[in-house]
Every structure is written in structure tokens, then in C-alpha cells.
């Protein structure tokens, strides 16, 4: 049921008193209506929705969680939870609603994945392209920045091109080198997915105070500057090994 039992009975009684009884002509029928009011008010004191009825609603939520659990990465939103035996009716109703909210988050998360069509790596590539100067980067730069092998990056770029989210172009300064550029639809898909993906990120950092967030921000900036300074002496192979032989694009 969608309405609470208390409110339903109150409304029934009010409807009988205000709308129905004044229109009832015979004394006997009015007596019947007053009897109904009396019994409804008695029921109100003792009745509540069945616990089993709420459990019936929770059962498919838990089944769904069981089916999804092996398919989802750790980064997926929380799955619906099973009830524990000690939960009373109100706690069960709260659990059912929390589970429904979790299913809504899963729908958003799946849609965000679908919006970029691919893996987290593909989304990462689109974010990097969106942030890059001229909205383009070389395949090897992308491979280094994402931290995946060049062979895998080739596959990612291929599928992004098929989806129309990225395109291959000749380098501006060196026609022999290929660069990958984000397309308008790639930009739109990335921006559409961002609000959904930002929610779990916000939740992850929600326990930090504003002051702690500022500190973290300052520290991360320092680390980024250190990386930038060190970039002249480092290349990605130092960190990720040397998969260059798998790279089609050099």
C-alpha cells in the first residue's frame, strides 16, 4: 500500500462523516454508517500493514543484488541489502525505500557507463582529451596518462572512434604522428556522464571537513607540480614497464 493505514482509516471516517452520512436518508442506513466509523476507529488502534507484505517487496531487491554482485566492479554504487530478522515493520519499510534508492543509483551509474559506451579507461581517455590543449593527445601520451598498455589503448581508441566520440588526426607539427581528438558528441557524452559519476566521488570525500578538503587540495597540487617538474626526467615506462612493442601508433 502507498498510504499509511492510520491516514487511510482517518480519511475513510472523515469521508463517511462529511460526504456520505449527510446524504443518507434512512435512520437504519445512518446507523450502519456510524457502526462502520466505530469499527474503523477500533481497527486503527490495533492494525498495521503486514510485515510479510513489505518482505515480499524486499525479496526481489535482494535477488537483484545477488545477480548484480558478481558483475559489478568495486566502484559501483552499493547494492540493495537483505533484511535481518530483528527489523520491525518501520525498519523494513525504511530498508525497502533505501534499497529502491540504491537501485536508482545503480540505474544512473549504468547509464553513465553506457553513455560513454565503454570501460572506465575509455571515460578516462575522454576526460583527458577534454582537458587537453587543443582537445587532442597522442596515443602514447594517452597510454602513459591512463596507465594502460599501448595495445589496450589502441583498442580503446578504436572503439571510441566507432562510437563517434573520438577521431584520429595527423599531428599539427608532424604529419607522420597521429593524434586523437575528442569529437563534439564525445564531449557531450562526457559532460552528460560527469554529474552521475561525481556523486559517488562526492560521497567518498563527504567525511572530510572543509578545512581538510582545502589541505588535501593543497597537497595534491604540490604533488602535481612535483610530477610536472619530474616529467622531464621520467617517462611512463619507468612506472608502467615498456609495452612499446604493442603500440601501433608510436
Amino acid at each position, binding site marked *: *500500500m*502507498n*498510504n*499509511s493505514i492510520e*491516514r*487511510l482509516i*482517518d*480519511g*475513510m471516517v*472523515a*469521508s463517511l462523516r*462529511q*460526504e456520505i452520512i449527510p446524504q443518507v436518508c434512512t435512520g437504519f442506513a445512518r446507523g450502519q454508517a456510524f457502526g462502520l466509523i466505530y469499527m474503523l476507529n477500533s481497527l486503527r488502534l490495533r492494525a498495521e500493514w503486514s510485515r510479510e507484505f513489505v518482505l515480499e517487496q524486499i525479496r526481489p531487491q535482494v535477488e537483484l543484488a545477488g545477480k548484480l554482485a558478481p558483475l559489478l566492479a568495486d566502484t559501483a554504487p552499493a547494492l540493495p541489502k537483505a533484511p535481518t530478522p530483528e527489523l520491525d515493520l518501520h525498519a523494513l519499510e525504511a530498508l*525497502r*525505500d533505501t534499497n*529502491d*534508492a540504491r*537501485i*536508482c543509483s545503480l*540505474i*544512473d551509474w549504468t*547509464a553513465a557507463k553506457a553513455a560513454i559506451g565503454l570501460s572506465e579507461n575509455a571515460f578516462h581517455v575522454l576526460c583527458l582529451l577534454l582537458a587537453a590543449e587543443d582537445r587532442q593527445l597522442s596515443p602514447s601520451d594517452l597510454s602513459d596518462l591512463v596507465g594502460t598498455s599501448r595495445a589496450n589503448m589502441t583498442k580503446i581508441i578504436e572503439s571510441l572512434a566507432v562510437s563517434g566520440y573520438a577521431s584520429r588526426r595527423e599531428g599539427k607539427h608532424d604529419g607522420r604522428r597521429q593524434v586523437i581528438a575528442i569529437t563534439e558528441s564525445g564531449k557531450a557524452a562526457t559532460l552528460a556522464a560527469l554529474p552521475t559519476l561525481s556523486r559517488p566521488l562526492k560521497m567518498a570525500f563527504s567525511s572530510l571537513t572543509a578545512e581538510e578538503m582545502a589541505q588535501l587540495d593543497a597537497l595534491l597540487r604540490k604533488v602535481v607540480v612535483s610530477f610536472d617538474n619530474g616529467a622531464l626526467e621520467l617517462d611512463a615506462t619507468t612506472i608502467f614497464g615498456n609495452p612499446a612493442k604493442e603500440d601501433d601508433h608510436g
Partner: protein
Amino acid sequence: MTLAQTMPLPDFTDEALLRARLTAYLEGETGRSWTLGAFKRFAVGFSWITYGFGAREKDDVAERGLILRLGPPSGLFAPYSAEPQFAVLKAIEGSGVPVPKAYWWSDDKSILGAPFFISERIAGSAPVPWVSANSSGFEDSYRLNIGSQFVSALAALHRCEWQGKAEFQAEGLTVKNAALRQIEFWEKARARWALKPYPMLHWALRWLREHLPVAPRLSFVHGDYRLGNFLEQDGRITAILDWELVHLGDPHEDLGWAFLPQYMGGSGLICRLLSKEDFVAQYEREAGFRVQLESLQFYLVFSLVKLALTHIAAVRCYEDGHFNDMRMPAMGTQIAPVLRQISKVLS
């Protein structure tokens, strides 16, 4: 002493007080004396309150029938404004859409306690037969005749010129964003009404955002065009009623709503009147554009979402104690079937 200072505001059930205030209003508007007869409240709708009454202006030989509609602060879609309904009724007078003549309106709550408008009372009754499954409940000749008028009135509404009229500002509305605007409107309604999350509704709203159609034109959209919202007398549709959801948008939206299975009564006929093919063929001829099947599908899903949200609103209004109308919790029992229907349509 003004009217507001001398009389308390009515609670919409105190008909004597309502009549007194309305008489004073009409006399103020026309500068002539009025005599109003007994008020009859119509048990229709969950939103605007409707009264019928007889009225005689000074020197009138005969009494004329008028309708008063009030948008109470506790209504499903409150807060209301009477202006859009009044403006559209005025704009389409004489356009081929049978509508009552609209006479007065005001959003000033100090007059009757709520926004209101007054229109002509039209003769006729709303044909909603009580039928068993697989039957339209209408004789074939009757349903074909009424069905044809039902389509003609809709096509006429969608052909109406609204451009250039000061009352109708599109405010950035285009054929490209008309669908999105409606989704945004109903998403806000969901945030306001829903007492709990509904994953199927969530999924459907997302699906709608991913399948936005481009409208063939921007036209008046009735918003609740269906069986039960028109009057008929002697085989003629005398008035299209219930304009509270009227807005500018994609004309496919009214088709999606009228095509809901809820209005077929198991007959397989659109609003128990016409086959889908006959409806679309006549509509295309008269509206002057081809119905896009993708748009129709989009607005069918949209209409199911809108229907589910209307039921959710009824649950909320009842739970909050604004109404003791037992039809509202009964509407709540229809939320799950509508959500199941959305699932079926989307899969």
C-alpha cells in the same frame, strides 16, 4: 470597506458565502446587479473544484447557466493560475474546437480564496460507459461519429495560431526542447510528490531523456485529452473540458495521452472510439503533418510516467491530509500496474 474586509474567505464548501462573494465580484466587474441561483458542485477531477449555477444579470429575461472553477491551494497541481486556461479558451473560441465561452478570471485570492474563472455552462454529459472487457460500450455508429469529432477537435486545437499573441510567450521553447521541457516539469513534480523512490520511474525518465524527439511544430497541447473530458449531446461533442494542464508543446503529446491503454477499456480502440489506424489517418489529414511513430512511442512512455506521477500525487495529497476523497488512495493502488506497463513498453 472592501469586499475582502467585510466577508471571510470561503472554504470552498460554504456555498452561501461563495455565492455572496461571487455576486459582489460580478457586480464590481459589470457595474450591474446580479442574482445567483443555487450552486451545484460537480464531483469531477481531483484538482480544480467545479460549481454550476444559474445567474441573472439585471434586466435579463432568462437565467443563464455558468460554471465556476476554483484552483484550491491544496489541489494536486497547486499553486494554480487561472490565466492559462482562460487565455487558451479565449484564443480558440471559434477555431473548430468546441469550448465553453470564458467570461471572467482572476488569480487574486482575496476574491474567492483561490484563483478562479467563470465560463458558459454547456449542455451535455461526459460519456464514460461502464463496460466489460473487450467491448467499447458504444454502438459502432455512435463511436465512429463521436470518434471522428474527437479527432477533428484535437487536430483543430493543434492547428490553432498562437504566435504573435501577447498571452502566449514561448520563452525559449523550440521544437527541439519541447519534450525536454515537459520532462523537466514532471521531474520537478516527482521531487515534490514522491514519498519514496520508484526505480522504474527513474529508469523511464532516464529513457525519455535519451530519446528526445523533435516536435513537428509547437502547438497548444491540452494535456489531458481523453474520454471523460468532453461533453456530448445528441451525437455531437459540445465541449472539450479540463484545460488545467494546457501548455505549448509537441502535438504528439496529446496523442500519446489519448492512446493510453487505460482509456481503451479493454476494447483496443483509442478512447473506446476509433482504431489506432483510423485515428492517425484522420488526424494526419486534418492536422497537416505526418505522425512520427518514434514520437508517438516516446509520448506514450511519457504519458505513462505522467499517469504514474499523477497517482503518486494523489497518494501524497491524501497522506498529507489535504483531502479525504477516497478516490485518491484508490488511485494509489494503480501506481504499481502503471509502472509494470512502463516496464512492458520499454522492454
